């Protein structure tokens, strides 16, 4: 007889279940690295959203460049022209992706350490630091921080963990986590926001010119153009909100790790447990906002 497949709970459902367990543990006064695990799961979910934001930024650039090419000439343009025009932004987004991947790998490794589980070795992790060190907006300290997190994650994935190492891990890596989150915050808050604002300027100029040039001659077409503009504008606004929510979530993740660091000698303390559960809930809310925006 065939067994019925059992649906795996989503990461968010798992996180919620973990929160309930933690609240019960806190009530019972137990000491447990489960708080670190709960935090790591939520923080990893935040890093998992950054690739979506990067992809949206890349798509936005290609659309903007297509507007530029269409305004410059009525001649046909190839997709290669658009890709070439966005090469700089794509390269910057790849750099951000590498730093984020190192951070995500660290949170995953921390979660496994808290759960005393061994993971699988990701051989590509160690290359992330070198790549980040060569990136434009990553200075030497930022590149070193990415390298340290990636190296930590790769080594721990290979050798498995002991709970006793948790305090050491949080203590060793807090500075690197704060540096990488800080550089990602700068990029999301300023660069991503700037890209989207410039894309919005281009979008408005493109549609407004189309309406000004032929709107009165072709009123029905003008209605469709305006509708299309409104849709694109709403999409851009959602992306701006998503990037803002992602940025805020990363900052919360950074503050959460700092709390773990400050209380690393008493990782099972009731106060810390409560504080970390509250951080994890904040992260859950932020993730929901990001998901809504995308």
């Amino acid at each position, binding site marked *: 007889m065939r067994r019925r497949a059992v649906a795996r709970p989503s990461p968010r459902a798992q996180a919620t279940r973990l929160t309930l367990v933690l609240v019960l543990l806190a009530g019972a006064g137990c000491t447990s690295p489960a708080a670190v695990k709960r935090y790591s799961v939520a923080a990893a979910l935040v890093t998992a959203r950054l690739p979506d934001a990067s992809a949206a930024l890349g798509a936005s*650039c290609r659309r*903007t460049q297509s507007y*530029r090419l269409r*305004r*410059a000439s009525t001649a046909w343009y190839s997709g290669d022209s658009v890709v070439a*025009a966005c090469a*700089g*932004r794509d*390269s*910057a987004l790849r750099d951000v992706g590498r730093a984020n991947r190192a951070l995500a790998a660290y949170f995953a490794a921390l979660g496994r350490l808290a759960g005393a589980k061994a993971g699988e070795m990701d051989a590509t992790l160690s290359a992330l630091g070198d790549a980040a060190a060569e990136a*434009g*907006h990553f200075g030497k300290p930022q590149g070193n921080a990415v390298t340290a997190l990636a190296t930590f994650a790769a080594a721990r994935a290979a050798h498995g963990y002991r709970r006793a190492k948790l305090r050491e891990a949080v203590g060793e890596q807090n500075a690197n986590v704060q540096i990488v989150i800080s550089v990602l915050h*700068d990029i999301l808050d*300023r*660069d991503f926001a*700037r*890209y989207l*604002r*410039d894309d919005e*300027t*281009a979008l*408005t*100029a493109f549609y*407004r*010119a189309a309406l*000004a040039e032929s709107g009165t001659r072709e009123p029905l077409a003008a209605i469709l153009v305006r509708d299309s503009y409104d849709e694109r504008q709403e999409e851009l606004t959602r992306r701006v909100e998503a990037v803002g929510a992602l940025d805020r979530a990363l900052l919360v993740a950074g503050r959460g790790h700092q709390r773990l660091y400050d209380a690393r000698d008493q990782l099972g303390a009731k106060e810390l447990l409560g504080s970390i559960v509250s951080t994890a809930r904040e992260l859950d809310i932020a993730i929901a906002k990001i998901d809504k925006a995308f």
Partner: protein
Amino acid sequence: MTTLSAEQSRAIAKLYSDLARTLSDYRFAHWAELSRRQRGEIESHEWTLLTYSSNMTTHAIRLGVADAGNALAGITRATKKLTAAARKLANVRRAVAVATAAVALGAAIASGHALAIGEAVSKAMSVADG
């Protein structure tokens, strides 16, 4: 070559973005007064300014100058003055002059060449002063 910090590059990128937006506002506000050719010229400059803004955001600016601080101050002052001038354009000739000076300054920054930057800053200041 001196590489400006990410912060410094971002500040100039923002000025270029503002300038593009201001010129765009002018073009649409005076659409009927501008000829097709004039609109096309200003629009072309707007796209170039947006491209500069994006490039400066993506890659830290590199300047081949002995005194990067002085060059940065000159670039910032000139770009701010051009943006202020773009906000109170009296006629289309002035709009085109401001846009052209901004594009020339952006090209000089992209080249990183000291002499080109010095000349473009002087020209931009002169255009902005009217």
